[in-house]
C-alpha cells in the first residue's frame, strides 16, 4: 500500500488563506498577489470554455472582479483557487449564452456521442511525436483537437488534466458528481488520444487514417 499516492498535506493551511484574510481586512495589494498568481489559469479555462479570445479576456476580468466583490462569501475551508474557478466557469457559460442570444448553455450538452468509449486507432505513436511539428503547428493541432470535443468533456479534461484540479475539485467546480467527472474524463482522454493518433502515429507506410467523424485532416499524411 505504500506506493499509493499520498494525499497528505490537504489539512495544512493554504497560503492563499492568509492573502484572502488580508484582502478582507482592506489590503488591496494582497489581492494583486492573488490575481497575478491565477490570472493565466483563469484565462486558459475561460478560453477552453468560450473558445473565443475576447470572451476569455472579459471573463477573466469579470471573474476576478466578482470574486473580489464576493470575497465575504468565500468559505475558508474551500480552496480559493477552486472557488475562483467556479466563478470563472459560470462567467464563461454566461458569456456563451449571450453569444447564443439567450439560449441556455450547460456543460451537459453534446454528450450523446459514443465516440471514445472504445479505442479504434491502435497504431503506436512515434517516440516523441510532437517533435515532428514546429511549435506553431503543434499548437494548432492541439487546439483543433481539443476544440472538437463536446464541451462537457473538454471542460473536465481542461480542469482535471491541464489545470491539475483533483477529481473532487473538478466535480465541485462544475456541480457534477464524482462518477460523472470520472466517466467524462475517461472519454475525453480516449477521444483526444484517438484524434491525436492521426498526427502522431508511427509512420509505417500503411498508416492511413480511417476513422470518421471529424473535420480534422492530418497535415502530414502518408
Amino acid at each position: 500500500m505504500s506506493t499509493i499516492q499520498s494525499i497528505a498535506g490537504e489539512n495544512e493551511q493554504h497560503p492563499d488563506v492568509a492573502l484572502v484574510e488580508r484582502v478582507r481586512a482592506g489590503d488591496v495589494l494582497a489581492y494583486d498577489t492573488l490575481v497575478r498568481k491565477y490570472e493565466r489559469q483563469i484565462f486558459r479555462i475561460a478560453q477552453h470554455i468560450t473558445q473565443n479570445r475576447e470572451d476569455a479576456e472579459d471573463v477573466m476580468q469579470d471573474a476576478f472582479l466578482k470574486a473580489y466583490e464576493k470575497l465575504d462569501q468565500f468559505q475558508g475551508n474551500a480552496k480559493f483557487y477552486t472557488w475562483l474557478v467556479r466563478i470563472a466557469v459560470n462567467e464563461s457559460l454566461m458569456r456563451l449564452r449571450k453569444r447564443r442570444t439567450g439560449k441556455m448553455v450547460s456543460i451537459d450538452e453534446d454528450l450523446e456521442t459514443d465516440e471514445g468509449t472504445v479505442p479504434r486507432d491502435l497504431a503506436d505513436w512515434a517516440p516523441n511525436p510532437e517533435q515532428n511539428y514546429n511549435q506553431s503547428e503543434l499548437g494548432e493541432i492541439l487546439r483543433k483537437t481539443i476544440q472538437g470535443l463536446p464541451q462537457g468533456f473538454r471542460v473536465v479534461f481542461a480542469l482535471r488534466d491541464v489545470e491539475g484540479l483533483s477529481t473532487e475539485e473538478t466535480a465541485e467546480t462544475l456541480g457534477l458528481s464524482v462518477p460523472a467527472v470520472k466517466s467524462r474524463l475517461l472519454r475525453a482522454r480516449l477521444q483526444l488520444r484517438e484524434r491525436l493518433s492521426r498526427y502522431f502515429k508511427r509512420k509505417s507506410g500503411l498508416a492511413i487514417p480511417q476513422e470518421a467523424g471529424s473535420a480534422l485532416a492530418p497535415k502530414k499524411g502518408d
Partner: protein
Amino acid sequence: MTCTEFLALLDELIDDTVTTAMRADLQEHLRDCEHCEVTLNTTRKTIQIYRSHEIYDLPTDLRERLHAAIMERCKKGC
C-alpha cells in the same frame, strides 16, 4: 481481465490511484495485450503533451493590461 475491464480502470492506472492488487492484475493483462499497452502509453502521452504545451497563452502585454484594469477597478471598490 478483458480489454473492457482494463479500459474501465485506465484512468485509475494513469492517475496512480489503483491498489497494489489491482495494479498486478492490470500489469498481467498488459503483458499479453499490445492494444491495451498502446492505448495506455498513448493516452499518457496525450495528457503529458497537453500539460506541457500552453495552447492558450496569455501574452505578457495583454496580461499586464488586463491585470492593471482589474486592480484599478478593485481599488475603486469595483
